């Protein structure tokens, strides 16, 4: 009987769903502001594997160009630069946020209620983020669905 808890734990482990290798959470995609041809996407990426995951490009059916950018404030100067890749460390996470790393979405087509972002490693798809805009758009008001 003393082995029962251990057996139950092993059983639960064996039956648990395998975690996806890469998970996006706290997703926010801003709508382009009036007259603008660009917006941004922010989220947290979590790597559930033992290897680093390298995101080298992002595509979207709704935007002609998506770039990985980072804003840095150094000595009171805001600088934004394009990154070659986004690396999520093993069993770790990377946060894309205002004033830091983010996706820059440029040249939108006809925008409906949804936007999809496909994260790629070289030419291999890693993860698709599907986002539903909030009905009333104000900066920071959209929620991930």
């Amino acid at each position, binding site marked *: 009987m003393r082995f029962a808890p251990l057996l139950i734990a092993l059983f639960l482990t064996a039956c648990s769903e395998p975690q996806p290798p890469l998970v996006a959470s706290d997703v926010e995609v*801003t709508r382009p*502001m*009036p*007259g*603008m*041809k*660009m*917006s*941004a996407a922010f989220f947290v990426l979590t790597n559930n594997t033992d290897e680093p995951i390298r995101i080298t490009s992002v595509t979207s059916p709704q935007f002609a*160009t998506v*770039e990985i*950018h980072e*804003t840095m*404030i150094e000595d*009171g*100067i*805001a*600088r*934004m*630069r394009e990154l070659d890749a986004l690396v999520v460390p093993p069993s770790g996470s990377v946060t894309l946020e*205002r*004033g830091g790393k*983010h996706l*820059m*979405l*440029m040249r939108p087509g006809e925008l409906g209620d949804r936007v999809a972002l496909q994260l790629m490693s070289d030419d291999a798809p890693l993860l698709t983020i599907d986002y539903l805009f909030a009905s009333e758009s104000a*900066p*920071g008001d959209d929620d991930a669905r």
Partner: protein
Amino acid sequence: MVAAVLAGAYLANRLQPPATAESAMILPNPDVVPAFSAVDQHGNNIDESVFKGQWDLVFFGFTHCPDICPMTLQVLATAKQQLADAGKSPLPRIVLVSVDPERDTPELMGQYVDYFGEGNLGITGTVEGISQLTEGLGIYFKKQPSDDENYNVDHSAAVLVIDPDGRFHALFGGPHVIENYVNDLPIVLAGGS
């Protein structure tokens, strides 16, 4: 007995230190905004006199900036709304000066600043005209080389407070947080230290 209590309360009030701005840096010798030539979001020609007659919160940014610029303007707009809700007066005008006048037409500036509320001012024009203003205020901006139209512009992240006499009165260096503005603006706009 009553007189003693009242005297004590009076002294306690007098001895209480005046409220002090915690995030804003108030300039001991404010400089007058330099002469410059630009246009507002309606296409009207403007100069340094546009800063006279009201308190202004002035941020230098550009409409193709996807994160810092809208985030900062939203912080300013939210802080202003919270001060209005609390019955504070005067309330500052929010001003965006474009550091990318080549792309930021008056029409674009109008759409952009209107997104953050009524009564905001957008300033654009020519690089030369904007530089007259920025150089005089010690504000940095530099267009980054790019192969296409999607270039970036490095720029100072500070928010300047201009007083109703058109003088550079105080500076919020950032990071820009709503609470800092809600706490400090009533002090700064009252001429506090």
